[in-house]
Every structure is written in C-alpha cells, then in structure tokens.
C-alpha cells in the first residue's frame, strides 16, 4: 500500500489550502485587506482567491482602523471575515478595533455577541527593511484578553492552525513570520520550514506547543523563525555532545504551559528564544510560567535569546547584531551547562 505522496508545500500555500477549503464550504467567510485581489496579499496569503470566490475577496483602501472595525462588525453580524494586516508593525495604527472592540465584545456583552474573525499578519525581519517594517510584536496582541494568537513555523502547522483559527468563534491572530512563508522573493526557505502537508483538512489545535526535536540536556523554546534557528543550534550542540530539546511554542494564547513544564522537568535547563523584543514579551512570559510551576526543577538559571530593546536597524551589519540566530542560542546554552 503506497504512502500518501509527500506534498512539500510552502507555508503560504499550505495556509491558503485551509482558507480555500473553508471558503468553499462556508459562504460567510470573507478575505479582506490591502492588495488581496490582484496581488493575493503581500505574502501570498490570498493568491488566486479573488478569482475562485468573486465578491468575497475585498481590496480595502489604506484604512486599517476602519476596516478592522468593519471586519469586527461583520463578524458580530454572522460572517467570518479573514482580515489581513500585511505588516505586524501596522498594528500600532489599528489596535483599537482589535483589542478594545473585537477582543472585549464577547465578555462585555456576556456572550450576546461573538466576534469570529481571523487576523492574518506578516511579521518579522532579517531582510534589511528597517524598523517600521521588521517587527514581530507577537506579544502585543497576546497581552490583551479576548484574542488568541498562533504563530506557525512550518507548512504542516500553517494549514492546521489556519483551519483551527477559521473554525474558532473568537478573534484569532495568525502571525506568519515572513521568512517562514516560502515566498520566493525572500530567498530559499530553510529546509525545516517546509514539510509534508496532507491533502485532507486537519486541525492543529490553538494552544498546543510541540516538541519538534527530543533531547535531554536543555530545553530550547522558540517561535516561528527562532524555532529553525534553535534546530540549527541543536545540530551544532550535538556535535559537542549536548542533547537539546526544541519546543515550537506555536501559540501564545492559549499558552501550553503543560508541554513547557514537562520539557524543563526532563532537561532542567531552559533557553527561550524570540525575534520579538526582549523586554515585556514572549520570553519573559515563558520563563515566568515555567518558574511559577516549579522553580526546583531548574539546574541553572533560565536564559533568553531575543531581539535587543532597539528599533530594528536597516544595515546588514547592525541587523545581524540584533537577530537571534543559531550561534547566539548555542552560546546561551553553553553558558548554563
């Protein structure tokens, strides 16, 4: 009996498969954003959708505050909009309709209104594009109660998380790191980004982290781009006889504390790596959550490898200094062994 043929789709394409599958079955799903009709979205999240679903893929004017509010209202009235924010940096333009309106409506109305909307966001840097175009900001939306946040790092998870997000009755942000989408103009994706994508629909549950590489000496927790850097670091560490376990967080909200605690209980050491700013973000949250559970399981203090608290610089030499990468992760691990 032959196995299913391996389908090595890019994460952008895999996520799109989920969108198409859901849009084929539910006429209330819309795809709204800038440049989604002719361009298919800046990062190929909507390629071909406008042709397949005429009238349901809508180009907006450059009015984020306006159309995020509009999407929230459409969701309250029974539609299920997918609304795209091309660059995470722009969330600063339109935070209010997302975090004050959409995220709070279910609670403030005592469940009279649900807001089932999916927010697709392109995040991250590493291609010298400058401070207002390179931020991750994963934890910004995560900080506000009422919105779920998931971050796929590979093709399989991209499709499964998008299915999960569209089926969820709450505002869900799917934050893709641009370098993990497989868009051709950002260079060749790392091999660990592309994996097999089953043809059927399937769900990767929101709020489930995954051990993507087992190990015994240290736990490295990553998100999106840093998962792949952690895997490269694990290869290097193995050459030195160190066995690293790599955990792909996959969701910030809900946060899978069980998987995290289980891993650190096994290894006793923790390095958390994030391309978002060091302070007041994901790395702090992960460390605090695990320490709170049981500080005695730590054989050494936890370490964080994150973007320094500086606006992302453009020049290659400067940005290289800031980006978390495999060598910085290796260094952090060696410090605590």
């Amino acid at each position: 009996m032959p196995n299913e043929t391996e389908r090595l789709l890019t994460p952008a394409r895999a996520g799109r498969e989920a969108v198409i599958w859901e849009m084929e079955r539910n006429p209330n799903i819309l795809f709204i954003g800038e440049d989604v009709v002719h361009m298919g979205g800046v990062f190929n999240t909507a390629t071909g959708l406008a042709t397949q679903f005429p009238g349901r893929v809508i180009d907006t004017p450059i009015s984020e505050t306006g159309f995020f509010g509009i999407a929230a209202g459409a969701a309250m009235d029974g539609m299920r909009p997918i609304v795209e924010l091309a660059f995470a940096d722009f969330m600063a333009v339109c935070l209010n309709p997302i975090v004050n309106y959409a995220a709070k409506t279910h609670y403030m109305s005592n469940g009279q209104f649900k807001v089932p909307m999916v927010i697709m966001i392109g995040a991250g840097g590493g291609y010298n594009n400058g401070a207002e175009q390179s931020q991750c900001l994963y934890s910004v939306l995560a900080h506000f109660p009422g919105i779920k946040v998931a971050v796929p790092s590979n093709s399989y998870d991209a499709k499964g998380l998008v299915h999960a997000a569209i089926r969820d009755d709450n505002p869900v942000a799917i934050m893709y790191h641009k370098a993990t989408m497989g868009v051709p103009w950002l260079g060749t994706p790392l091999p660990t980004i592309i994996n097999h994508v089953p043809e059927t629909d399937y769900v990767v549950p929101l709020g489930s982290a995954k051990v993507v590489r087992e190990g015994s000496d240290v736990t490295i927790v990553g998100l999106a781009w840093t998962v792949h850097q952690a895997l490269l670091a694990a290869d290097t560490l193995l050459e030195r006889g160190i066995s690293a376990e790599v955990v792909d967080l996959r969701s910030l909200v809900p946060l899978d504390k069980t998987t995290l605690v289980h891993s650190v209980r096994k290894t006793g050491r923790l390095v958390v790596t994030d391309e978002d700013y060091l302070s007041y973000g994901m790395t702090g949250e992960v460390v605090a959550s695990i320490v709170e559970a049981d500080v005695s399981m730590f054989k050494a203090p936890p370490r964080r490898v994150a973007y320094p608290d500086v606006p992302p610089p453009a020049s290659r030499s400067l940005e290289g200094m800031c980006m978390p990468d495999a060598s910085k992760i290796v260094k952090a691990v060696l410090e605590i062994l």
Partner: protein
Amino acid sequence: MSIASAPLVLPDDAWAEEQEGVLSNWFFRDGAQVREGEPVAEVMVAKVEFEIVAPRTGTLSIAVPQEGIIQKGVPIGSVRHD
C-alpha cells in the same frame, strides 16, 4: 524527451525578454506521483512568481533543482506516464 513524458515549462508569455528565472520551490520530490492539474513548482522570473502545474498524471522527474536557473523554453522537469 519521449512521447510518454510531458515537459514542465513556463508559458511563453511569462518571459518578457531574454531573461533568466529561478526555480523557487518544488512541491514534490523527484520520482513522486503527481496528478494532472496539480501545482508542482513555483518559479520566479524577475520579481514575478509563476506556478507550474503537472500537464498529466504520472511520475515527476526533476531537471532543475531548487535555486537553479531556468531559461525560456527549457523544461524544468517532466511528468512521465507509467
């Protein structure tokens, strides 16, 4: 190329002038079974992306690997009828 094998090429109008393109992503490994109409690769010419679909059902044969340069009229691979 035998009659049993259908080449994978970009449509002629994808090439504006004498240009090179690059093979961005293969969606299947060499030797995989593919179906007619299924996208099998992504190619980039200048900054424009194109999708290459399998012209028939059969076994994929890869001629140009990922990151390889491609030229007008030169197949990137083929699909062999079994």
